């Protein structure tokens, strides 16, 4: 059985098992945690094996080529699973506090973990899918499986967020379906076997013979549709609500994994469109959406006072930056975007988890209330402080590297002025983060809040993430570089990459 299938089955099984624990009564908590942790650990190991295979310049296929992993997919798969693993570990520490505070019951706990794994399953499907329509199906599935994560607390606001999330995303993603169908229909007309016309790898091979008008229209639908899920302006409106209302680890998963999955779908389509219509058209659209997202999100960040909403807008901003990177194109642009996707995921997971510690500590997300974190919870404080700086693009952390590469790509592409504007926005972002640091992390601590850090389980993932961020910031590891350069070749559809992606 293919590794891919094993991975998916593991996650699915974990999910079902977690749901099943609700009937275990007093044992629920322990059982569900065990199931959850072992499930995500196994998933991590399998993913490691898959990526190892991909590093051997191998493209894995499964289920009659409906599922596959190339370098591009491997990056996003890695992100989903690594983020899922770390957020999963963090969840264990975090949700216990919710249990203690009585925010949730043990039954809800098993629901949470069940949906957690299901969500990961859906995301893995999305990134592994070679089938254009199945991509859509999986993305839709991610929405459905994460709605309850958003609404898990059952509060008025979390229900509201969940409702907005599901309505906006289904509307948006439904538009994406039109794009997908148009591509399929067009490919079907060109290609001999309808079974092949639905496979991305095959369509890529025949992209040059597709109809430009149809494909460009399809891309518009895809971009708006999946762009909703990516959180591009102006379709991003669900994002701050959902991210802020979900439990922190779920927010991390939404922000660091889910958005990327949808982005991958867009990129895969963009690769086709580039072949058919020429690279200018998709690049321009991506750039417009990317730049707008960066600009608008930045201004929102500047005024936001809720830490998780702030982070959510930061996600919009970063997804915009990644999109912009793809839009700028060229080997550097694509590599920068891919690297930034990785960096953003790590940093954002870390920050969302860190914000979870804030919530644990202060019981609120309001930055006007949160003060003196460094004094109250030194380790969390330091890590959040560093995380914010890193997210703001300060070396020696990773975000700096990819932001810099993006700027380089922009200058190279002849959009120096746009890069200057972007840099100014990035400065505003940094300023806002520093404002958060100086307002909430530094300074005197308020009276009446107990001192001490939350449990080690909530700190360890942060430390690991910080280490990874530092590692990438100081020196991007060889395997990552290789994956990125292979993936770049895939996105740009260089002949070698085309040959490599041909299935068995």
């Amino acid at each position: 059985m293919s590794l891919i299938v094993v991975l998916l089955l593991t996650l699915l099984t974990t999910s079902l098992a977690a749901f099943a624990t609700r009937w275990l009564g007093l044992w629920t908590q322990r059982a569900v945690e065990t199931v959850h942790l072992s499930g995500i650990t196994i998933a991590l190991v399998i993913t490691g094996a898959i990526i190892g295979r991909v590093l051997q310049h191998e493209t894995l296929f499964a289920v009659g080529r409906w599922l596959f992993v190339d370098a591009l997919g491997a990056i996003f798969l890695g992100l989903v699973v690594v983020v899922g693993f770390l957020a999963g570990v963090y969840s264990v520490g975090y949700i216990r506090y919710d249990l203690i505070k009585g925010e949730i019951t043990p039954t809800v706990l098993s629901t949470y973990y069940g949906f957690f794994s299901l969500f990961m399953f859906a995301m893995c499907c999305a990134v592994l899918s070679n089938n254009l329509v199945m991509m859509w199906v999986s993305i839709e599935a991610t929405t459905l499986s994460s709605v309850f994560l958003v609404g898990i607390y059952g509060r008025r606001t979390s229900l509201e967020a969940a409702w907005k999330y599901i309505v906006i995303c289904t509307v948006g993603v439904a538009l994406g379906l039109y794009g997908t169908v148009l591509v399929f229909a067009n490919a079907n007309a060109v290609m001999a076997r309808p079974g092949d016309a639905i496979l991305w790898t095959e369509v890529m091979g025949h992209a040059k013979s597709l109809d430009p008008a149809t494909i460009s229209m399809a891309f518009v639908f895809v971009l708006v549709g999946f762009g909703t899920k990516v959180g591009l302006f102006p379709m991003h409106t669900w994002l701050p609500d959902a991210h802020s209302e979900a439990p922190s680890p779920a927010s991390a998963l939404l922000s660091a994994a889910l958005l990327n999955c949808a982005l991958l779908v867009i990129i895969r389509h963009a690769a086709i469109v580039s072949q058919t219509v020429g690279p200018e058209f998709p690049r321009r659209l991506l750039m417009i959406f990317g730049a707008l997202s960066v600009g608008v999100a930045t201004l929102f960040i500047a005024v936001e006072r809720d830490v998780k909403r702030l982070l959510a807008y930061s996600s919009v901003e970063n997804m915009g930056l990644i999109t912009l990177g793809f839009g700028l194109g060229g080997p550097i642009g694509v590599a920068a975007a891919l690297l930034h996707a990785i960096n953003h995921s790590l940093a954002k997971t870390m920050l969302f988890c860190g914000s979870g510690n804030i919530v644990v500590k202060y019981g609120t997300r309001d930055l006007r209330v949160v003060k003196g974190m460094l004094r109250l919870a030194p380790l969390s404080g330091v890590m959040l402080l560093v995380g914010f700086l890193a997210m703001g693009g300060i070396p020696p952390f990773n975000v700096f590297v990819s932001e810099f590469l993006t700027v380089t790509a922009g200058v190279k592409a002849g959009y120096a002025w746009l890069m200057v504007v972007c840099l100014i926005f990035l400065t505003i972002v940094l300023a806002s983060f520093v404002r958060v640091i100086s307002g909430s992390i530094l300074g005197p601590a308020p009276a009446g809040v107990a001192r001490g850090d939350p449990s080690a389980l909530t700190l360890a993932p942060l430390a690991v993430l910080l280490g990874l961020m530092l590692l990438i910031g100081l020196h991007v590891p060889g395997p990552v570089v290789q994956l990125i350069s292979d993936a770049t070749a895939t996105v740009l559809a260089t002949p070698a990459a085309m040959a490599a992606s041909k299935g068995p």
Partner: protein
Amino acid sequence: MTQTDIIALLAAAVILPFLAAPVSFVVPRFLASIVCAASSALSFAAIFAASVGYTMDGKQAFSRDLVSVHGIAIFGFTVDRISVLIGFAAGLVGLLVCLYSVGYMALGNREHPEVGKPRYFFFMQVFVSAMAGLVFSSTISGQLFFYEATGVCSWGLIAYYDSPKAIAAGTKALIVEHIGSLGLYFAAAMFFVSAGGFSLSALGGMGPGAKTAIILGILFAAWGKSAQFPLHIWLPDAMEAPTPVSAYLHAGSMVNIGVFMYARALLAAGNVPHVVGAIGAIAATFTLVYAFFLYLPQLDLKKLLVYSTITQLASIFLALSLSTFGSILAFDGGVAHIFNHAFAKSLFFLVAGCLSFTTGTRMMPKLHGLLAEMPLVAIGFGTAALAIAGVPPMNLFFSHFAMLAGGFQASRAYWPLLILVGISILEAVGTFGWFLIKFGDAVPGPASPAVAGATALPVTMAVAVAALVTLTLASGAFAAAWMG
């Protein structure tokens, strides 16, 4: 000594303090300061050994790439006369300031009586490391990396006292410097696009358009770091930092990064389009006059020193800019001035620190008659004030003369430049007068009550001050000889 040895030593100088920095959090508090002083001493020793090796090898300039991705050099070291000179100064001032901090961050401090927190020493050591990295960096990407790193250290150290004012000042410093760094981002990107790599040595082979854009980007970044108008606004507020920090970051090394990067770029570029020089020179002249003007209302000694730093750096910018009109002397003088100014201004800040340590105030109207009560501090004050006033045998005289001579040289090509040089001479006269007045106010005569009630100075602080006095007296001819 082989080139590899030199590179190894420099790498040690960068890495050692960085590795030692987290130790501050682990060891007991009283040890943290010792660790800091020791690691900065090791770092300086490495730089010193490398400098000696470089000199023994007959000052053979060379570069070596250390980190490459896909064959593109991301980071490396350049060892040449300017990097060794400035690296030496930064290392030495770093060592002295760390030594000084051992005494300063103590309960005996009358302005801020507290034992230094680990993060002070942490940031200090990271800064020592970053500074060495930046000065010796052979690539623009390395410069950018360390540029931002020093910005963060500056932020952490300015905000050190955690008062709302200090935090705001730190934030401001970080943001304004970051705005400056945008120029460097841009320049680095342009650089990559034009040269396909980051090694600064490639600058020389570029077309005039790319050169202009890149150097102007670097110049903008340099303005941010070196606190030039209009990006100067962070520096006066940064005086919320502990005084050794002001001495080190805001006088001795960090603010010099800006001018140093500019110098490095000009050196690498060889033939620089005149528009760069013109922009640099005019902006520098404006800053010069503006900051001089702001001497007048200052009562806080550190604030005065800040504006003096801004003018000194502006005059270096002016000299470096003028050097693009064909004056090597202006360039050499400018770089030597960076070196000399590091010692003189650090000395002045440390003296200010001694004053606030012993008397609890930095307000000049309260400080008279130092000579009567604390001769060493008075001598330090006098040496520093007269050095900044540009009087021989203090070091700044030598480099200032060379800069002006270079300015005149440059004006041979374009006489309007003479106006700028003239303005800078007038400013020099004004600065001279102002610092002479301050010297006359503070040093001689009967001691004011604040000075009369001063406490004793710790040994480490005294040693640092004495060493800097010596350096301020001696470094002028050395720098000039080295550059020539």
